[in-house]
């Protein structure tokens, strides 16, 4: 998977990338050192929850999410049994990135098919506690409630 992420990171404007599985565990990452596992875990969980929630709502698979912020951009590509998350600059050339990302998603899908469920990397106590929360089996109402910020 690291080779796949390396290809993604080679695209101009990409800061780093990581892969999380359906449960939201970060199973591979090639991110700048400043982003440790503790930082990425809630991101992975939220992405997994969101993709699962959107699937329930729309009754179709969400192909991608593109979130644009003041200081950067996160593009998420759904690979079925997990997703590829790409952190990049706001002005990244999206069509160019998509070319590489779409190839990467296909390779990831093949990897998911080949591999047995991978263990999460470097679990901390907080992570282990958070991971005990089921993601996929929540109802729509629960998902909405869990995702609401006030």
């Amino acid at each position, binding site marked *: 998977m690291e080779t796949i992420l390396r290809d993604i990171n080679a695209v101009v404007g990409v800061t780093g990338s990581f892969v999380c599985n359906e449960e939201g565990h970060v199973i591979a990452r090639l991110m700048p050192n400043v982003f440790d596992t503790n930082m990425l875990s809630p991101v992975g969980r939220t992405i997994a929850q969101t993709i699962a929630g959107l699937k329930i709502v729309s009754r179709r698979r969400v*192909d991608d999410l*593109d979130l*644009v912020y*003041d200081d950067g951009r*996160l593009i998420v590509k759904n690979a079925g049994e997990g997703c590829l998350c790409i952190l990049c600059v706001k*002005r990244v050339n999206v069509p160019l990135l998509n070319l590489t990302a779409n190839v990467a998603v296909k390779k990831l899908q093949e990897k998911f098919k080949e591999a047995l469920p991978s263990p999460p990397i470097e679990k901390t106590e907080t992570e282990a506690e958070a991971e005990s929360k089921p993601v996929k089996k929540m109802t729509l109402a629960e998902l*909405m409630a869990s995702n609401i910020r006030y």
Partner: protein
Amino acid sequence: MTAKRILLVDDEPNVVKSCARMLELEGFAVQGVTSGTEAINLYQNSNFDLVLTDLKMPDADGLEVLTAVREHNPSAAVVIFTAYGTKESVVEALRLGAREFLEKPLDTKSLVATVRRILRQGDGAAVRGNLRTMSLPNIFQINCTERNQARLRLRQGKQEGNIFFADGDVVHAELGSRVGEEAVYALLAWENGDFEIEMDVPAPARTVTANWSGLLLEGMRRLDEETAGVEELNQTEGFKAEGKATGDEKGTMGDMLQELAKTLKTIENVIGVVIAARDGIVLTEILEEENPEKEAAVAVFVGNAAGVIGEPLSLGAFNWGTAGVGKDTMLILEQPDYHVGLLLGERASPAMVAISAREILKHGAR
């Protein structure tokens, strides 16, 4: 000398009558009709030097007249009359080759001046207009997506700036002493001013490297910052002016959101709008076949997730996001009390729609 022949089309007989009379007094031979279909038939069977057509007409509208006329004669000069709120059609008209846009109600002096200038120029002249009729982001979009090589000349009072397009991007810009991206950002702040687009003009230099959508995003961000500064100042001044009424007599929140949704729906390539509270309750919607609750849930899910995700990654404030489900794409924007979901057409540029939507959300409904 033979009088120049003008075909004038407007579904309002009074407009046709008064404009025709005025142009005839100026020495033009005018054939006035009140139907787009009639105008197309007439053009295909006679010779005209210029076509003046209204945009909104019940049978064949101005765009259909423009398309038919240019199909029959690719160098035909067509001027379109537009009313406020039809900017998306103006973009299409420019793409189809309209020579100029005049805002209704028509000012007789400017109509005559425009007619004279276009007839004097003949073929291959520049496209002209005003930024109030077509915004700079729209001009960027059309020239970049069409990969035009062109010079855009902008004038506001005594200031004049130039932007050059090539290979699907902005390649050079100048405004006074400023060149490159700084000139682009300064020009993006212009809400008013005349523009002129000359095709096939090469850029004298390459001073811009950022892609065009990135330029627009950065330009709008800078504009947001400036506006926020002014609003803050106004607020402070407001506090000083004790007891001064705001003058804002607004309707209910529901009315306001409905108006907002209507305005958002006018953005080019927006095919549906849903505004939802943070708990997923639909506040208002303009949708066709889609289920409002489902669409609201998508907007809320993505909007809320964006906030959660942005913090650990130190990405700063959330601007906008998209969720792609099959061929459908929803653009999501977060407001303090609600989320806005815009369903996009297949050819939409989310970045462009986001820019327009943020402008609308900042200033409220028209």
